[in-house]
């Protein structure tokens, strides 16, 4: 194997290895942590179960708060402040009624945002696999060239250089992308703990 085709094979292996280690059931999942498609409210919340369905949407003040604190760009501290401000004026009965609904709302909305993030990561993984395969094919074509095909060799070498570079750039992006669902999960946990803390103790 030439150094070039060895590198290409390594790229493909690196991709396949990472993916195989973590995917569990989903062949497109590239991150180290196993894919958990949906964050269940029960995995984060010990409080009273909210009613089934999306009753939180029917209370305009709840729907507005959920819409304010669950977009991807909202910082955890800002979200926690908004939850505290919402809960502060409520009496015990209102807290018992509204806070479980708020919990259901932030969980549902965060899952929607997170679902989009997961889809983008999977698309990135598919793209990365194609890049590795293309680099591999170019390397094989280079190996198969007759010694006198200098022009063709120069062209393929350049192509191989760019394919390899694109793969490596994409791998860096992937490492960063895999952090995004973790940040959303952490923020949802912090929100739910704060909501649970605000429930009347009895």
């Amino acid at each position, binding site marked *: 194997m030439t150094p070039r085709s060895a590198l290409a094979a390594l790229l493909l292996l690196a991709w396949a290895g990472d993916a195989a*280690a973590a995917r569990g*059931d989903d062949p497109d999942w590239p991150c180290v942590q*196993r894919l*958990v498609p949906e964050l269940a409210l*029960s*995995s*984060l919340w010990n409080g009273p179960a909210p009613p089934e369905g999306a009753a939180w949407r029917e209370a305009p003040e709840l729907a507005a708060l959920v819409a304010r604190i669950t977009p991807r760009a909202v910082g955890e501290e800002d979200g926690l402040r908004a939850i505290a401000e919402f809960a502060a004026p409520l009496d015990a009965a209102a807290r018992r009624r509204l806070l479980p609904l708020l919990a259901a709302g932030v969980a549902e909305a965060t899952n929607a945002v997170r679902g989009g993030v997961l889809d983008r990561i999977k698309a990135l993984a598919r793209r990365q696999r194609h890049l590795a395969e293309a680099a591999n094919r170019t390397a094989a074509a280079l190996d198969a060239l007759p010694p006198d095909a200098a022009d063709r060799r120069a062209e393929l070498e350049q192509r191989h250089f760019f394919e390899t570079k694109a793969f490596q750039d994409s791998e860096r992006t992937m490492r960063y992308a895999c952090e995004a669902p973790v940040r959303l999960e*952490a923020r949802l946990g912090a929100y739910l703990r704060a909501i649970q803390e605000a429930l009347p103790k009895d």
Partner: protein
Amino acid sequence: MRALIAALALLLFCAAPTRAETILVSNERDNSITVIDGATLQVTRTVRVGRRPRGIALSQDRRQLYICAGDDDRVEVLDLATWRVVRHLPSGSDPELLALHPDGRRLFVANEDDNLVTVVDVQRGAVLSEIPVGVEPEGMGMSPDGRFLVNTSETTNMAHVIDTTTQQVVANVPVGARPRVAVWQPDGARFWVSSEIGGVVTVVDAQRFQPAGTIEFRVPGVPREAVQPVGIVFAADGARAFVALGPANRVAVVEAPALRVERYLLVGQRVWNLALSGDGRRVYTTNGVSNDLSVIDVEANRVLRSVPVGRSPWGVVVVP
């Protein structure tokens, strides 16, 4: 003069608190060790160490902490009096988990990248041998008598039983998918292996090295793929075990002889590893996503407190 000495002695006597334990947590993403006072549950200091610290273990005299610094390809030795890294030990590449032999000298280190277990002499700071094992070795469980080491390999889905004297693999036991941690019962009769993707704990008979039972975990309302067993710790009397269930954010309390799940306790997010307090009354958990340590009251079967630590807390040990 005598009066002065007496006064000083009295002062010292009064000032000496009841001997409290210290909790040490490795923070994978902060490259640090968080030090927590067990009596007050306050963080007393944070110590910078090598890159990507994960597995940690106490020296036999409890004065030093061995730290796998994975991205620095070495084991660091942290002095617990001066809080300085005083030595580096060779470890092979990317050390993740380690186990100290009861002889206090031989440290067994899992090298995830090289499919090896490296044996290090901690006194001489030298590699004694390398033992080939399965693909992506991970969990390291030393039997209470030090005769056997159980190493799990993530990709091969096996527990490899290594005779620590001959350094030969004497048995390969199939376990659930992506095995993580291997822990022996205090009586040495069985060892338990957690499987992160399989979602189970396989219990292995240590006489025949055959699976003797499987523990499954079903947390109401939590999807199966979120149940990812990792850390295991036994209560001091061996009657109960605690199993960390990763992103299910639960610790399962298991009746050890019956292999029956008693209950699930909600802890911080992505609960990874566990340690028992010196008096056996508390279990400490590292929570990798919520960046905290949960404190479980064993008797009351409930979570007492959350202590914020560094980013991606991973390993935890208690210094009595």
